[in-house]
């Protein structure tokens, strides 16, 4: 074992149900908010914010009592949101050490971090505690941090710290002195133990610590010995680290069903803010974002956006998500929003000095999404030719900046090109000896000067999409002398003459 002295930092976030719900709702921060738990009508306050406490509200108040306070915001407890938020806190703690233990209680989130030997990396414990607290604050959670060489001393102190003085570091050997003024509530006492200590007139850890050990054991058993060690700050602990998965996910349950996408964007903005913050803490960017909307009536609507390069630009993400949701709107009102992101590396690609000017990938993504909103999905992209002789022998794939050059050689002579008519226009054709001699196209009559053909093509006869054409290249002239070079087709399935393309 290494001889590095043990050092633990404890992060304590009280009123966790309220904090988890208010984290992504900055508009409620200045209002008295209470979180109710339980089955209606027996709901009780399980957590509340400072404003509500100052108004006189307290835990275990019933719904009727809460209703007597005007302007108070009543939220119902969301275990799912708390779990997500706790995961975020643990992940934030995990940035300082992979040894993190989760000691969360019902309405408080406690995590203890083994920070032994991190002085060279994060500085002395005071600075580490400050950094940790700042990180946690940027996540929208207020917490207290204590550092001690004893695990339980750190936990007890963190529970006893006031929000005004959220950081305290216990020097090694001074545990019992620092813990002495703390009330007994920082220990998880059972009801009989609480009663006994109250009966004895023991109110602080200091008073508990000076009780004679043998007599205490005689009256309270081995549990009494443990409590006395806790009060002394020398109780041993077996550290059980949690294994953390790095999951970039945020969840918001809306108070009222939302139908307008624009108002949803405010929520998404806050969520993205948090996701980007967490990704940046690991020097990562967001590679793709999946938004899942829980809808009224039990359905859900999920969309994924993946730009060409991973990005931490919140405006870009908002724009892409907005355009995507506008193109594919949910069919019912929205009850909850889950935003899941995949992390990607932030590595920047260095373009060559003499490489040709290309569109900037992130701007191109937004531009393509905007154009897609204008012309409709599937109407833009790059054409890929298919191995077929069918008239529309291509498919459209999403446009992306090509990574490597595929050799294309420009032909040596000018090629005559075609303008396809989609859909083909009907023409009436006069035939002589089964060759076209005249045609009427767009209400003009043309006399055929040269007719080349017929070129026969057919395919897919084994399928329902069978097609067959007889093609003619026509050079025709109208009465006013204008020339028409075109390709006309006789659809063998319909027996109908069509103008397929113009040579231009």
């Amino acid at each position, binding site marked *: 074992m290494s001889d590095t002295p043990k050092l633990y930092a404890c992060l304590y976030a009280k009123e966790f149900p309220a904090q988890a719900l208010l984290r992504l709702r900055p508009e409620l921060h200045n209002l008295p908010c209470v979180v109710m738990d339980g089955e209606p009508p027996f709901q009780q306050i399980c957590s509340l914010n400072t404003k509500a406490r100052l108004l006189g509200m307290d835990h275990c108040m019933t719904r009727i009592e809460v209703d007597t306070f005007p302007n108070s915001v009543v939220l119902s407890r969301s275990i799912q949101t708390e779990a997500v938020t706790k995961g975020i806190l643990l992940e934030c703690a995990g940035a300082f050490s992979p040894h993190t233990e989760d000691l969360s209680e019902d309405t408080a989130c406690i995590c203890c971090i083994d920070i032994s030997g991190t002085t060279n990396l994060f500085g002395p414990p005071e600075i580490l505690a400050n950094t940790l607290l700042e990180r946690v604050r940027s996540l929208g959670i207020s917490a207290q941090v204590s550092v001690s060489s004893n695990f339980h001393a750190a936990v007890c102190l963190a529970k006893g710290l006031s929000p005004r003085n959220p950081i305290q570091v216990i020097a090694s050997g001074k545990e019992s002195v620092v813990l002495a003024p703390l009330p007994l509530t920082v220990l998880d006492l059972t009801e009989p133990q609480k009663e006994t200590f109250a009966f004895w007139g023991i109110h602080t850890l200091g008073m508990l610590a000076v009780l004679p050990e043998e007599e205490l054991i005689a009256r309270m058993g081995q549990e009494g010995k443990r409590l006395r060690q806790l009060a002394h700050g020398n109780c041993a602990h077996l550290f059980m680290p949690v294994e953390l998965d790095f999951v970039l996910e945020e969840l918001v349950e809306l108070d009222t069903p939302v139908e307008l996408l624009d108002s949803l964007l405010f929520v998404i903005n806050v969520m993205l803010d948090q996701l980007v913050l967490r990704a940046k803490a690991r020097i990562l960017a967001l590679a793709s974002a999946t938004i899942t909307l829980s809808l009224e009536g039990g359905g859900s609507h999920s969309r994924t956006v993946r730009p060409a390069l991973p990005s931490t630009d919140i405006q870009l993400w908002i724009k892409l998500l907005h355009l995507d949701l506008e193109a594919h709107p949910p069919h019912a009102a929205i009850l909850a929003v889950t935003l899941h992101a995949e992390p990607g590396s932030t590595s920047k690609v260095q373009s060559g000095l003499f490489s040709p000017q290309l569109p900037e990938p992130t701007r191109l993504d937004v531009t393509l999404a905007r154009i897609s909103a204008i012309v409709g999905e599937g109407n833009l*992209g790059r054409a890929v030719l298919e191995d077929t002789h069918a008239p529309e022998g291509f498919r459209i794939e999403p446009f992306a900046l*090509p990574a490597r050059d595929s050799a294309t050689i420009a032909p040596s002579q000018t090629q005559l090109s075609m303008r396809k008519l989609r859909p083909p226009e009907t023409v009436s054709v006069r035939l002589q000896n089964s060759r076209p001699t005249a045609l009427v196209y767009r209400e003009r009559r043309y006399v055929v000067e040269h007719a080349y053909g017929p070129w026969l093509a057919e395919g897919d006869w084994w399928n329902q999409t069978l097609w067959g054409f007889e093609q003619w290249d026509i050079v025709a002239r109208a009465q006013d002398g204008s020339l028409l070079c075109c390709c006309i087709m006789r659809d063998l399935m319909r027996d109908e003459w069509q103008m397929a393309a113009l040579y231009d």
Partner: protein
Amino acid sequence: MPSASVLRLQIESALAHKIPSALTPAPKMVRPIAATGIEPLDNAMRGGLPVGAISELIGPECSGRTSVALSFLAQITVIGKVCAWVDVSNTFDPATAAAAGINLARLLWVRCGVSHPDAARARRDFVLPDRYFAPPPVKRGLHGGGFGSHPRNEVKGISDAVASLLQQETTAPRCAEPPRRTRLTQKTFEPNYPPSSTIRRQPSRSAKPWPRMEQALHVTDQLLQCGGFSAVVLDMGGMAPEFVSRVPLATWFRYRAAAERTQSSILLMTQHPCAKSSAELVLQLLPAEALCDEITVFTGIKSHVEMARQRFTQIADNILPLRKLPQSVNALSWHSRTSWTGRR
């Protein structure tokens, strides 16, 4: 009385925050050029089409405008740049573009006004009539193979069979004149896919083109704002002039400014000039002539072009001669051949 130059300075400084150098004419620019790949055209334009400006290709249908545009894009994609084709009437043909040498991976194709891009090819439900699905009648008798009914049942239908032999024609009383033979009606086999004559599709041309033109103009705006596209072709070659000419001139002016900023060439294909003074170069294509080199295959056309407008032509010398300068040839022609024609 302040002099004109002082006044000008005052006005310019007052407007400086809105319009930089309001009263100073824009300096003449010698633009970089990009070759079109058509030799006679490049020679006449001293290198090719201007970069960062609007070039207009005007001409009737079948005059060779698309060939010029595709040849220009081929030259751009070959050197690794990307370009965009804004297709107002959905007439772009990828196969021809590939044949012209365009790297399709470097071409963004935007189709405007297409409501169902993924409409599958017309399916023809080929269903056999029901009578073919009915099981064949059970053969009876010896000829149906063994294990059939007993031979004595063979005589059961004999009277019907004899009756059917003695048809009315044979049994009816007849007079002396020869019987009038009823001609057998010819049995016709009709194709059993739905008749096409009833479903006559309305040509899309009859619809007003405003929505797709509006889409195309918006898309071009977006592409120019994005930047990085070396060429943007706005293909309005299939639109009637009365529609195209109603696009406000401010649009072209805006495009000109955006093109100058992002250094992309805008190629405008129309039937009638519409960009007016915003166009740096106007190529008027005249009606083409068909080439009749072969009897069996169509070989191509001979295009004629006239340079209707070219701004800021470079004058070799600063001294203005008294005589009229020798004018450069502004009418030329070349052959555009189909891809199946060999080199001549």
